[in-house]
């Protein structure tokens, strides 16, 4: 409970119980200080800082070298045009101007948008449902939990390959089953109208497990006393769910929503693996990151690819910021 609320305080300065704890610690420190020699505390403080920084240095360094520096470089490269073997020249806003009438980019935004609109809400809804069910006292609970978590520990590439075969229009299991009841199944991953939705199904299926685990820990953090009180007051299970479970789960839902949004914006591997290079459905399925990959590593157009990455970064920032503002209306911290 304590750990959870401090974790979410990252997203909200209200920070639940941590607010209550801090004054307590200050009091203890104050008492201690009165007892000891005051001069010592200053040097002590400095060496504390030293050790603290030393301890976080490896992580900080990793962040700076592997995250912050590449981000800055990407922003810089988005203003350049690349030739072979790392030669590039400053071209100002050219890459961004090119974006305006890039039909492929627009289409990839649409594709990613549809993908997000389906995977995020449906994924979260199903995850909550499964988490609540798995939180009941049922037999073989751990077996179910394992089953739901299995797709998470499976390599995305393996998932994509297996689903590709299930979806195969001539020899796949899915169309075989449909043929038994006299339906001629569609070309799941080749028909431009259907392919994106086929991918969405796989994405939701493989993403549920991870969210369920987070929701489960959230559910178990809700004090039993609330439920007991509700029971005494005569509330039915549905009322309990909407009045107690859901509001108390809202910080977790918020966290999962943000993470799902970011994850969905960055979808790449499923599309890369399930839709072949020469596929007729590629235009209608390629995501923003797929297009980025295409420009950066296939077409060797790294400047434009960097511009796409920067645009994506800005969009994710804006959407996350909007969510931060909106969360005040629906997220309850205890």
């Amino acid at each position, binding site marked *: 409970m304590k750990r959870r609320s401090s974790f979410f305080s990252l997203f909200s300065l209200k920070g639940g119980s941590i607010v209550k704890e801090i004054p307590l610690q200050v009091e203890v420190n104050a008492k201690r200080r009165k007892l000891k020699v005051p001069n010592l505390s200053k040097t002590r403080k400095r060496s504390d800082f030293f050790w603290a920084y030393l301890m976080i240095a490896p992580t900080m*360094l990793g962040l700076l070298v592997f995250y912050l520096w590449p981000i800055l470089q990407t922003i810089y490269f988005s203003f350049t045009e690349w030739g072979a073997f790392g030669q590039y020249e400053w071209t100002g806003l050219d890459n961004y101007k090119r974006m305006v009438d890039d039909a492929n980019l627009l289409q990839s935004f649409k594709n990613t948008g549809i993908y997000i609109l389906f995977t995020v809400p449906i994924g979260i809804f199903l995850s909550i449902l499964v988490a609540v069910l798995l939180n009941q006292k049922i037999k073989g609970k751990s077996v179910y939990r394992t089953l739901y978590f299995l797709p998470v520990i499976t390599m995305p590439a393996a998932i994509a390959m297996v689903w590709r075969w299930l979806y195969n229009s001539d020899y796949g299991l899915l169309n075989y089953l449909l043929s038994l009841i006299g339906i001629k199944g569609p070309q799941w991953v080749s028909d431009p109208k259907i392919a994106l939705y086929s991918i969405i199904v796989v994405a939701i299926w493989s993403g549920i497990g991870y969210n369920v685990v987070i929701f489960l820990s959230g559910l178990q953090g809700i004090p039993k006393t609330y439920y007991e009180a509700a029971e005494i007051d005569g509330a039915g299970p549905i009322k309990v769910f909407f009045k107690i479970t859901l509001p108390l789960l809202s910080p977790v839902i918020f966290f999962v929503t943000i993470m799902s949004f970011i994850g969905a914006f960055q979808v790449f591997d499923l599309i890369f693996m399930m839709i072949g290079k020469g596929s007729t459905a590629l235009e209608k399925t390629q995501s923003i990151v797929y297009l980025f990959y295409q420009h950066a590593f296939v077409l*060797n157009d790294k400047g434009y690819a960097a511009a796409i990455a920067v645009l994506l970064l800005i969009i994710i920032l804006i959407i996350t910021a909007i969510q931060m503002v909106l969360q005040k209306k629906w997220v309850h911290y205890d």
Partner: protein
Amino acid sequence: MKKWLIMILTLALGLLGLAGCSSSDETSSDGKVEITYGFWDKKQVPAIEEIIKLFNEKNPDIKVKTELTPYAQYFQKLETAATGGALPDVLWMNGPHVVQYAKGKVILPLSDMAKKDDYSFDNYPKSLIDLYTVDEEVYGIPKDFDTTGLWYNKKIFDEAGVPYPDDTWDWNKLKEVATKLTNKDKGIWGYAALMGNQGGYYDFIWQNGGHIISEDGKSVGFDQPEAIEALKYNISFIEDGLSPTQAQMTETAASELFSSGKIAMMFDGPWMVPEYKKNPDLNVAVVPKGKQRAVAIHGLSNVIAANTKHKEAAWKFVQFLGSKEAAEVYANTGTVIPAYNGTQDAWLQSVPNLNLKAFIDGVDYSVPLPSVENTGEIWQYETDILKKAWSEEESVEDAVKELTKKANEALSNN
């Protein structure tokens, strides 16, 4: 303020730690010169190790370290390495990339060194030397080669009572037999009209007298009548229901359909021998002729990186890799057709029940795979645009118009 100082110091400390990880040795401790050899095919590791052993018998002072990178990442990795001046001393190169690497000056021209050492390029098929010649300088010593053959399923032919393909076949005959062999009830297609350039529409365009890239390298020939006719001929197999559709072939690879007896005939290269020899029903013949005979030839070569610190040692190794001795090792292991003239016989016998000679026969009328500085970009446009014609979304005329425009733009950027 002090806080910041401490923070910077800790950062510096960390950086020092990181820097400590990356120290590199130039020469190994026993005074030998060490060179690295970069390549991508795991199947060839045993042959390469044997060749290095033979090389070391003659050159004990040169130690060769191998560096295997899977093909999917090979050129991405090379490009980064070339940018940082860290290419392996000797490495595999393919046709589509050689011009880019030669013009980028990251690989060395070999002509001068060859002249000095009296090293002859006549021991290899001329089309392969041409493939690795950029601005009249030879950059790579051919290692192996591949052409295309018409693979077929004997069982399907026998059941339909049709004689097997031979060198008298032309476009009409191919179409005629494909029609006879197609059997919708059994789910058998007569032919697979692949959307691939080498061993696909390039071959047909050349057979029809067309060209891919003009002599001056300034334009592509996809919108020429010969090319349009060739593409239409290829796509007509799909339109007439003689070939799986483009969508079907992206879902299930044509090679898989072929090896499981669902396709009667298809074009494919010698690299499929290890796979297709598992099915005793399969065999191979020369590709049918159009207005003329033509087949794409492509082969790999060994090149020397411009950033090498041991040019002499690298050149010695490349010479040895191109030698008859090394070619014989390749031939005996049966994985690739060695490029050294006259060493192909051993390869022919490596799978006796397949008519592998069909691939060697093609050499006489073979055309090198076109290579320009931005071949990769043009190939990408081909896949993106021609697939619309293959899936019958767009007419061949409209598709080649768009393709020609984009490809010509790419060429003019050179």
